[in-house]
């Protein structure tokens, strides 16, 4: 996936001279995850550049550059470092068009999520804060192919997009078709099934797929939906699945309390009240600060917790 994102950035830089990439350590180093590896060398220091270490202004200058006609693609180095930029994102990136009529074609890349055994502030899932804000689009790919295509769609989009990269999935490998298009706001059925719908995005999709595999051995059929886009949210694809299974489990790494799953669960419960055979279950992180690395496996959703929720949904009533 890391290479797919790198290629997507390279292609965007090639196709549109107004695309700029900047952030902390994205230049000579190629980013702490090497996502921007080689880009400064290829496209020069005016298009791929290191900034001073200050997240608020990394996003703040993106607003000014967008006004000047550029398509900025700033990187926030880690999920837990996005908070200094929160005001610029929420008060300006999201609202500038509403205030001025000028579009903000900004794509903010953020490596997010856990499973990497890191120190504090390096494993967070802040997506719900941004999905809650009108004016932003929020996406998260789960495969290299989607990472390539969704990033192309994000950079092409005239509106601001927060692009959450599941850093624990950077190592995933697959052949990708660079001509394939993935529109923002369109979920996909990652695994067809009939018993329970498991809704995931970003890093939890592969866990949901493993759960589906394990369940299949026990003759339980899970349908896995990869949302790909949190805002806008593709409820049509979700409801098409729930109409088939009558049961749903939402999975993410962020804490369950006020997490994005609450929105999905509420929408399914409202739109599909008569369809449901069981309450919509939410699987996610505990309502605690992200734990020290030795404990993260206990905090994060895993195959067993998904299977338990699916079993409970099937056994309900």
């Amino acid at each position, binding site marked *: 996936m890391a290479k797919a994102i790198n290629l997507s950035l390279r292609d965007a830089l090639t196709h549109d001279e107004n695309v700029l990439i900047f952030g902390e350590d994205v230049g000579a180093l190629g980013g702490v995850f090497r996502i921007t590896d080689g880009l400064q060398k290829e496209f020069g220091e005016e298009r791929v550049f290191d900034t001073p270490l200050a997240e608020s202004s990394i996003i*703040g200058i993106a607003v000014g550059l967008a006004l000047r006609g550029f398509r900025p693609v700033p990187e926030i180095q880690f999920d837990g470092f996005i908070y200094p930029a929160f005001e*610029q994102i929420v008060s300006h990136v999201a609202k500038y068009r*509403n205030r001025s*009529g000028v579009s903000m074609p900004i794509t903010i890349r953020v490596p997010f999520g856990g499973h990497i055994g890191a120190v504090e502030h390096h494993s967070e899932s802040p997506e719900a804060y941004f999905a809650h804000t009108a004016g932003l689009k929020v996406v998260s790919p789960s495969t290299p192919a989607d990472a390539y295509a969704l990033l192309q769609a994000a950079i092409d989009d005239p509106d601001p997009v927060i692009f959450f990269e599941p850093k624990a999935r950077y190592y995933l490998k697959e052949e990708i078709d660079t001509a394939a298009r993935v529109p923002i706001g369109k979920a996909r059925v990652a695994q067809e099934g009939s018993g329970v719908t498991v809704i995931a995005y970003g890093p939890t999709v592969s866990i949901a797929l493993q759960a589906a595999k394990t369940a299949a051995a026990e003759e339980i059929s899970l349908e896995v939906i990869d949302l790909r886009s949190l805002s*806008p949210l593709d409820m049509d694809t979700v409801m098409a699945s729930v109409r088939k299974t009558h049961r749903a489990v939402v999975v993410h790494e962020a804490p369950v309390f006020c997490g994005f799953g609450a929105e999905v669960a509420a929408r399914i419960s409202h739109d599909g009240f008569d369809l449901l055979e069981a309450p919509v279950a939410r699987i996610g992180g505990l309502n605690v600060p992200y734990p020290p690395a030795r404990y993260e496996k206990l905090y994060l959703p895993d195959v067993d917790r998904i299977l338990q929720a699916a079993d409970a949904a099937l056994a309900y009533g």
Partner: protein
Amino acid sequence: MADVVRVVAADDPLRALFSPAGELTAEGRSRLGLDAAALRELYRNMVLIRRADQEALNLQRQGELGLWGQFLGQEAIHVGAMTALRTTDWVFPSYREFGMAMIRGVDPADMLTMFRGLSHGPWDPRKYHFAPLAIPVATQVPHAVGFALGCRLKHSDEVVLSTFGDGATSEGDWHEAMNFAGVFKAPVVFLCQNNGWAISVPLSKQTAGSIADRARGYGFPGIRIDGNDVLGVYAAVTAAADRARQGEGPYLIEAATYRMGAHTSSDDPTRYRTESELEAWNVKDPIARYRAWLEQQGIIDEGTVAAITDAAESAAQAMRARLTAMPTPPPGEAIFGRVYSNPPESFLREREEFESSLEDS
């Protein structure tokens, strides 16, 4: 360390124009290059924006505006700075720059719709090269720096003016933006309207040091000038903008002035400041002072002064008439219309539902 200081001093064309106290010197005044008509125009614009400012306050008191933040006493900065720029130069204001926007040609009645609860930003920034008013303090300063960096990357000779108040210099975004500007050598002029007060907090409780001197720490020069002298402000912004245009990077101008009015119409300054302070600044009123100088120089006479006063009165009445006659735009468009360039289907559905709920009621 000493080397840095020396480089900054050598690279500062403003020092030669101002006394150590920040007053424009006779030498500086002789180099302004403004003819009598241009000098009268500075006066006319100050009178025009002061009268509009007063009318906006009247409108607020009469219930036509929800809020008004006067810039009374700061007219020399508004007019001096805007006159020094080219119309292709961009301005990134905070929220008290009504006069600056007027001078750029933004319709003042349109602007007041922000304070009438009709709009969050009624003009197209690209048409006037004037960014929307920024309400969260100092958050517009990084935008100015990003825009200026963009000008450099496009190899254009535009310059950016970034304005903010003394309170803004306490914000993290202000520091970050100054630092970015220094590193990027961005063509931006930072103009601090130091009006002494951030709502009720005086400068002495805002910062323990000098605002202008901080520029040196970011690798570019700064100067504190008399912000109630329109010619001084004009000279300073002209020189700083020329320097930026030539690729010499940012400059910080701290223009010392005073907020003669309240923070906004919701504020009561009698709770935190004294009448004597106000009186002391009243003597330095930028318009009266400039008029006296123009009269002394024989550039303006009583007839011209009266004609300008009348023109400002008519303009203020026209602004009022246009504002109060303005229709309320339909809610669907006003609330949903500009959020997205490429609106999601779900968003359009919500708008439809909202609009049909209005038809039903």
